[in-house]
């Protein structure tokens, strides 16, 4: 097929299929058209809705400040696609180059983009998960149902898991004046993403806002009443709580099952792809016609020891989708790497939290600006003598600077004077991640350039 070899033919009359019609899928489609792709474009999504935004679902939507149905993603341009909504892709036939849908239809492609994202990890006990009053939060419908419940006269809510989503739900509950218990297996909220030191700040924040926070315990069972309604929860420390609502916030699982047997390197940790978003097959050989982007993708990042990172971040989905779209329709030498610096934000208990880089790689941290006690600060994470991440509480405006520090492999701990630095010397402390990740070799990479099209990797001598 000429479209495989001739990029010009592909751009004009190729067939591109996108599986997963959400943030990454939509942004990729828009980019394809922007870059002059005039062939056929098919968007396959198992949800009934056109692409919508998820971050507001656990924030504004739960507060009644935005209706979940109003979170449709703004369109940057018309994408002139055939939409196949409400129908999941069931499997992938690489030899025939087609995707089969659950309704039996097949959709042939010259280039395939996989953006099937993640889903909420369900409560481990299916019968308990089915009780009326047990929720997860991933979709528009989840958010609408939970909002109705929270404003429908309940008194106490149990949030299981104090990661970002769980903490945001707890925050929304408090704003509604509901009593809320948060049960977290780790030693503090947000500890997996930001470590114990910052976790302790989040801990204080939750208690200050009246959350009944219980760390170091897990929920062992959810108990229903006669009519299948949630009544109480049992905790590993033997305590029992009467609750009408439980929000299960135990993280996400990658939607890769439909790829089983297809021969692509897809599994519970995501779909492995190269920095150009091209998917690997199970042999570790890169394909040239299958791409992946967004929450479902795992790709090596030069700044982080070429570790394969899978990121569940809004901004990553957008940029990776743009890179994938660009690379799908251009010749080899014009392809670009996805060298995004991980970044995400959250808002909870009146505080804006933002992070750049990969905090969980950082074994140590210093408070570079502000103070932990005021819950207004920037903490900088170090990894083998270089800055690897920064997290701010109500200090997002500074993070652009720390992003540059990370990209340029700046030494850790930072030695310079800065505004709002409260101590003369910055004494690094252990950032207290539950399971410290010990990488193997030193930094030799920096990133340069102001925009994705300019961004390049530069090798520099190690700081060691």
């Amino acid at each position: 097929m000429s479209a495989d070899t001739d990029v010009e033919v592909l751009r004009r009359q190729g067939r591109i299929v996108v599986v997963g019609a959400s943030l990454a899928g939509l942004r990729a489609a828009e980019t394809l058209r922007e870059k002059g792709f005039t062939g056929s474009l098919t968007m396959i999504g198992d949800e009934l809705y056109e692409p919508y935004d998820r971050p507001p679902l656990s924030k504004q939507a739960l507060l009644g400040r935005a209706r979940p149905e109003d979170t449709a993603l703004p369109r940057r341009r018309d994408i002139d696609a055939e939409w196949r909504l409400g129908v999941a892709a069931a499997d992938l036939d690489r030899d025939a180059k087609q995707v089969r849908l659950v309704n039996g239809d097949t959709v042939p492609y010259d280039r395939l983009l996989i953006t099937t994202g993640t889903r909420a990890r369900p409560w481990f006990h299916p019968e308990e998960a089915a009780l009326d009053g047990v929720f997860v939060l991933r979709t528009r419908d989840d958010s609408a149902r939970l909002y109705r419940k929270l404003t429908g006269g309940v008194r106490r809510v149990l949030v299981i898991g104090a990661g970002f989503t769980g903490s945001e739900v707890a925050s929304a509950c408090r704003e509604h004046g509901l009593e809320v218990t948060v049960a977290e297996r780790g030693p503090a909220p947000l500890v997996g993403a930001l470590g114990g030191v910052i976790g302790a700040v989040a801990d204080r924040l939750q208690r200050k806002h009246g959350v009944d926070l219980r760390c170091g315990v897990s929920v062992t069972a959810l108990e229903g009443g006669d009519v299948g309604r949630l009544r109480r929860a049992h905790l590993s420390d033997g305590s029992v709580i009467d609750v009408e609502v439980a929000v299960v916030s135990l993280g996400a699982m990658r939607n890769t099952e439909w790829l089983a047997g297809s021969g692509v390197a897809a599994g519970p940790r995501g779909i492995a792809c190269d920095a150009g978003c091209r998917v690997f097959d199970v042999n570790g050989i890169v394909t040239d016609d299958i791409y992946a982007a967004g929450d479902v993708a795992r790709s090596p990042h030069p700044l982080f020891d070429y570790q394969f990172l899978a990121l569940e971040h809004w901004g990553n989905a957008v940029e990776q989708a743009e890179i994938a779209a660009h690379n799908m329709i251009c010749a080899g030498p014009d392809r670009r790497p996805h060298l995004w610096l991980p970044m995400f934000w959250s808002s909870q208990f009146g505080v804006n939290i933002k992070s750049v880089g990969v905090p969980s790689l950082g074994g140590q941290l210093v408070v570079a600006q502000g103070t932990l006690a005021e819950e207004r600060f920037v903490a900088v994470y170090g990894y083998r003598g270089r800055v690897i991440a920064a997290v701010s509480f109500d200090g997002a405006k500074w993070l652009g600077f720390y992003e540059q520090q990370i990209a340029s492999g700046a030494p850790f701990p930072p030695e310079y004077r800065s505004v709002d630095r409260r101590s003369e010397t910055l004494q690094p402390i252990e950032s207290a991640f539950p399971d410290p990740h010990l990488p193997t070799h030193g930094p030799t990479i920096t990133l340069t350039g102001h925009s994705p099209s300019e961004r390049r990797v530069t090798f520099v001598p190690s700081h060691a």
Partner: protein
Amino acid sequence: MTSGTISAQITDYAHRADPYPLYAELRKQPVRREDDGTYLVSTYYEVRSLANDPRLSNDTSNRPPGYARPGQPAEETGLPPSFIFTDPPVHDRLRGTINRPFGPPHSPRFLDGLRGELAKVVTELLDAFEGKDQVDVVEDFAYPLPVTAICRVLGVPREDEPRFHVWADVLASSLDPRSGDDDGPEKAQRARQELGAYLSDLIETKRRHPGPGMLSALAPDMTPADLEATAVLLLVAGHETTVNAITNTTLTLLRHPDVLERFQKDPDLAVPIIEEVLRYEPPVQFVPWTTALADIDVAGTTIPKGSPVWLMLAAANRDPRRFEDPDRFDPDRKDNEHLGFYTGIHYCFGAPLARIELHLAVPELFRRVKFSRLIEDPPPYRANAVLRGPRQLPVAIEGLTA
């Protein structure tokens, strides 16, 4: 052009009407050291990154002795520095407090609530053009509107304006790093003292008899000295910046009849036109009051700790690496992230108010007034190199529609 003289040329009045060739010269060396150890930064990415760099301080007491300390209150005025001359945490605390009565989330409707009255002011000012064949856009239009606005925002009696006009002028000139006469600093100090005393009385009255406006709203939450310093700053800023923005927009449109013609057919063009003027002729041309707290590497140069740094916003706004064909006035520009209101934690506090005023003033001015020509081009400019704008903008007009 030899090195070491460019900052003097920028402040030299001879270049006021068109400083852009100097800025282009400057950009050839994005970070440039002047003989007195001042560093001028003129390219977009470098200015933006420094404006967001925690190693750069706005607190002028960090300047080594001997360097100009614009805006620095002499100890005798008894006033703390206004919040543009502070760093966090003081800055964040002050700005956070001041923001409460001014905007969202606490006062989402405060500024919107002023629209009606400001629109009335615009109408009255334009009505007064009736029967004239020549007006001064500054005196007759661009100046009275922002002054009324800032008086309303603060809750300061509009009638007192002639009194504080003079003080505001002197204080604005003191931001200019090389403001002409030698007794400049003393004059500025006296002006600050006198304006402060005026406002202090007013604040005292507001404490006892609260009324509308920010001064009343803030009186319970701030020390008298902090509130006084804040009021001085906002009053001066309200006087000197939006005036220039309105005048610059008028001048730019009159110089670009093609755009003006489109604008008169399509009033929605106001939004991109106003943003493009903020890029093309920003009312604050540069920020000459920051100091490096540490050695900072930018664009291959190290700015040593303690150096005064000038961030050249207007030069950055015309950096060809960031804006295509930057010397062209082009309201169709996409992705116009100009630095006209600065960036980072010191991003213009009054930007939302300024935008409201511009959007009330500019479309109405060009809807009602039939302009025939600029009487003087370039018009006479104010002395100030930092807050740059025409002192007068005389134009011939041919009539007024209702």
